[in-house]
């Protein structure tokens, strides 16, 4: 057990023993080394399985809308998860006073796609040190620099520190560089229309419409998603280009002003489909047009839920 894990365990045990929360959402060990499993602890004696490391791929805030507003939820949060919680509070998906966040300044997540693409499916264990990842096979071990395996969203992360956790464990990290986050969107936008379109098609048309991206996203909590709607049918139901492109366009667009750049959608995808180049474009536009960044507090309405006569002259007439 790492130092961080033992500190977290102690905190969580206290919360559960003092009955300050009804459930504590964190991770536990799973047999597959690449995917620790979201876990829901209700008693401190269940914490034996507890694990917390850079392979914990999910955004745990995605589980919050499953609970009634009155449930007292404890959660371990990284920067993006804290922001997701904040925004869920803005959208009235839970009451802030009923969430207890233990914050962990985030080192960045190791992307399982990058691991598998580079090291194959034969890994039997993956361990981490500060700057290195150790990959074990049945008969040998390999080391690789952590930086090369971080998820793209983490490489461009601007706010790795939890902003409003109730307790924070560990030392705060320096803020990320906002220009870095923008360079990629800018580079994509600089391509011509045909090139952008070609990239979009190449990614979208590999989709198998499993909707893991949706289910993994803290903001996709609609009881009925537009793709599941039968009458009227908004988009084609098939894996035709029409259906798959519509899914990618509209899912991303529904995140305009609501996305916290966690990358959980991309990490959930079984087909290695890139999709944060869509949401990051929207995030960038929300920043430049409306000076809005999602999840920075738990009060400010996103641009599409608010409107302002001040933007009267911003549009072509």
């Amino acid at each position, binding site marked *: 057990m790492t130092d961080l894990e033992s500190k977290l365990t102690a905190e969580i045990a206290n919360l559960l023993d003092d009955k300050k929360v009804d459930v504590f959402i964190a991770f536990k060990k799973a047999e597959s080394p690449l995917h620790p499993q979201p876990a829901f602890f209700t008693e401190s004696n269940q914490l034996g399985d507890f694990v917390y490391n850079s392979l914990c791929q999910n955004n745990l805030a995605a589980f919050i809308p499953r609970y009634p507003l009155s449930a007292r939820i404890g959660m371990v949060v990284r920067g993006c998860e804290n922001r997701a919680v904040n925004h869920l509070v803005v959208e009235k998906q839970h009451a802030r006073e009923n969430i207890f966040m233990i914050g962990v300044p985030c080192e960045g997540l190791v992307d399982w796609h990058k691991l598998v693409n580079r090291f194959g499916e034969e890994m039997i264990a993956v361990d981490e040190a500060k700057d290195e990842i150790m990959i074990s096979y049945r008969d040998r071990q390999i080391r690789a620099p952590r930086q090369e395996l971080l998820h793209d969203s983490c490489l461009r992360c601007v706010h790795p520190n939890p902003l409003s956790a109730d307790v924070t464990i560990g030392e705060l990290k320096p803020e990320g560089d906002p220009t870095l986050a923008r360079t990629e969107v800018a580079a*994509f*936008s600089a391509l011509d*229309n*045909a090139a*952008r*379109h*070609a990239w*979009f098609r190449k990614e979208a048309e590999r989709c198998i419409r499993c909707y893991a991206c949706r289910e993994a996203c803290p903001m996709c909590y609609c009881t009925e998603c*537009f793709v599941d709607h039968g009458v009227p049918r*908004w*988009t084609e139901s098939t894996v*035709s*280009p*029409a259906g798959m*492109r*519509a899914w990618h*366009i*509209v899912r*991303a*667009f529904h995140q*305009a002003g609501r996305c916290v750049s966690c990358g959980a959608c991309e990490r959930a995808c079984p087909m290695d489909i890139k999709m944060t180049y*869509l949401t990051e*474009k*929207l995030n960038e*536009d929300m920043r430049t*047009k409306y000076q809005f960044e999602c999840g920075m507090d738990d009060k400010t309405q996103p*641009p*599409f839920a608010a*409107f*302002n*006569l001040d*933007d*009267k002259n911003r*549009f*072509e*007439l």
Partner: protein
Amino acid sequence: MIDHKPKIILFQCQWCLYSAEDQTWVDTQLPVNIHLVKVPCTGRINTLYVLNAVQGGADGVMISGCLPEQCHFKEGNLGARRQLDQFADFLDHIGYERNRVRFTWLDLQDRGRIQRDLAQFEADLTKMPKSEALATRVGGHHD
């Protein structure tokens, strides 16, 4: 260059044309290449409508509505302007050129402007190639 008339989908807020002649013109005399979708307010235009038009092979989409502070429903147009403008930018991001989506926000004295704006739009679209990005149901049915 398009060798035939560009297909335009016009989403029109039913309150935005203040003069009866303009509305009659839109209702009865739109050229065949312009398809009218009348809505109770621009605020009612779901981005999925726009997408459906684009996937159906629209070379251009025009949205006409009322100016801010003149919305029949007070603020439907304010939300619509933010969302639809962003959606047009977003479509551009994945290859459907920004100038294929046009807005015309109409005022009381804008008599006859809808005809002019549509004509201008059509002229501009004619200079562009047929829209292929995102058109997935071309040769679609209109019956």
